[in-house]
């Protein structure tokens, strides 16, 4: 596994250079936050990773293979809005991916196969805190719950890379911190690399293992057309976070042990193994 490699990437729209000379190697299981001012091309960069847009020059490889120029099931995505299908129930939305993959003609499965997918979907919904809302439509969910649903829907495909385009930007601060906790847990649990575009530096530093800042190096009015943005800062979070292993700063204390400096086995993931953390994920109506 070699992660994502971006070599000498340029993106131009006509005469307008948006991104220039982007070189980046993303390790497997990293959680990358892309930050930068508005219009600096971070969403464009994400779209190229998604395959929604093709680079003008340069290459992107995922695990050594060039990225196809259209979105596919190896890369999941959650947008800020419109990430779920309004005409499907919550359960239908989560089942959509596996059903579409299993049934190429109808996009629906029946009988045993359907039940297997439904079971998996129920488990996934429970994991993101949406148990009990299976029969609702997205319009009946709050913004935060819709984004949880979008995450669940994307994760059902077990993507290698999860791309997030300001997924939590429209949420209230309280809801946002809840969903941050969920996001962190999912990243620890699910073997995937995450690339997230965000405006919120605090969010970037809370979640990411590495922060990539895009900026225009030349921003005088006469230079704007021909000079695009590029990576200006590449910040590794200290202490290093690595997936599946929380640092002592985020560690859950082991039962019966309240001093994190006492050497011992790493406390494991933040995923509550025995019983769900009732405060973190309050039961839903």
């Amino acid at each position, binding site marked *: 596994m070699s992660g994502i490699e971006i070599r000498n990437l340029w993106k131009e729209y006509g005469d307008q250079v948006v991104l220039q000379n982007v070189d980046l190697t993303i390790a497997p299981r990293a959680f990358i936050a892309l930050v930068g001012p508005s219009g600096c091309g971070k969403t464009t960069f994400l779209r190229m990773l998604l395959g929604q847009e093709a680079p003008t020059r340069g290459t992107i490889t995922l695990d050594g293979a060039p990225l196809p120029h259209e*979105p596919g*099931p190896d890369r999941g995505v959650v947008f800020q809005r419109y990430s*779920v299908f309004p005409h499907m129930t919550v359960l239908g939305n989560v089942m*959509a991916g596996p059903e*579409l993959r299993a049934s190429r003609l109808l996009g629906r499965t029946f009988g045993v196969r359907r039940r297997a997918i439904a079971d998996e979907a129920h488990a996934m919904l429970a994991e993101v805190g949406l148990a009990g809302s299976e029969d609702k439509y997205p319009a009946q969910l709050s913004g935060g719950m819709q984004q949880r649903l979008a995450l669940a829907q994307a994760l059902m495909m077990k993507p290698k890379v999860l791309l997030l385009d300001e997924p939590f930007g429209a949420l209230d601060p309280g809801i946002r911190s809840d969903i941050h906790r969920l996001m962190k847990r999912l990243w620890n649990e699910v073997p995937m690399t995450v690339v997230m575009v965000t405006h919120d530096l605090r969010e970037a530093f809370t979640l990411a293992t590495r922060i990539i800042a895009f900026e225009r190096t030349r921003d005088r009015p006469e230079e704007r057309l021909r000079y695009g943005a590029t990576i200006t800062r590449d910040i590794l979070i200290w202490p290093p976070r690595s997936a599946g292993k929380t640092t002592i700063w985020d560690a859950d204390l082991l039962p019966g042990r309240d001093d994190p400096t006492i050497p011992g086995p790493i406390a494991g993931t933040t995923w509550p193994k025995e019983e769900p953390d009732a405060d973190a994920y309050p039961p839903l109506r």
Partner: protein
Amino acid sequence: MRLINVRPRRGTAVLLACLPFVVLALAYLVGSAVRLAENPSDKLLPALSTIVQTVKLYAFTADRRTGLYLLWSDSAASLGRLFAGIGIATALALLLGLLNGILPVVRAVLAPFVAVVSMVPPLALLPILFIVLGLGEVSKVTLIVIGVAPILIRDLALSAQALPREQIIKAETLSASTWLIATRVVLPQVLPRLIDSLRLQIGPAFLFLIAAEAISADSGLGYRIFLVRRYLSMDVIFPYVAWITLLAVAMDLGLTALRRRVFPWSELERGR
């Protein structure tokens, strides 16, 4: 309080909604009474009793010549043509509109053509249809299809294009093919919209139906109205017009109920 903030209560709203109908009925009754007082054989605004007599004759008495109950046989003939026309137009709209809305390649071929065709005044084509297809049912149904389909196609294509791009991308990341995106993501979301635009097309569909029947038919609601026009039989025309209106209103309400029933989520989305 500003007028803009005055909202009628539920009961009041129902009463207010009835008001224009009551006013119209009263105006008719008064006008009819005045004219009949002046000239008892006036045909323009027949008395209510005359109309009731005529309705009885048309709806509940078998015709002496054909043995048919004319109102019902006319309705059956007209509705058959109408439903055939609307049905074919809807099927065309689903196929062409969806292709047009989803596939840029098809859009490049079809969109300008459909846009131009939808500007052809269908009634101007009626003589051609009568000449080419004969005076039978086919030409009447075709007129309805030509009148209704292009607008349905364009509306459906527009609403398919108006779906957020994000949803299509999302479906692609969920491994959907073009076919699956069309059938599982786009189609279910444009169907409620199709039902709404069908509701708007009921009026034009009736227009084309009655125009075709007026010129050449041997039964049908439009045929009857234009037939009795020669005898100034307002006592037939008025009930027929009211009946056609009632049919159209019933279809409108029926389609709305269908949308709510089959696509409950569309009502939720509307409130957002």
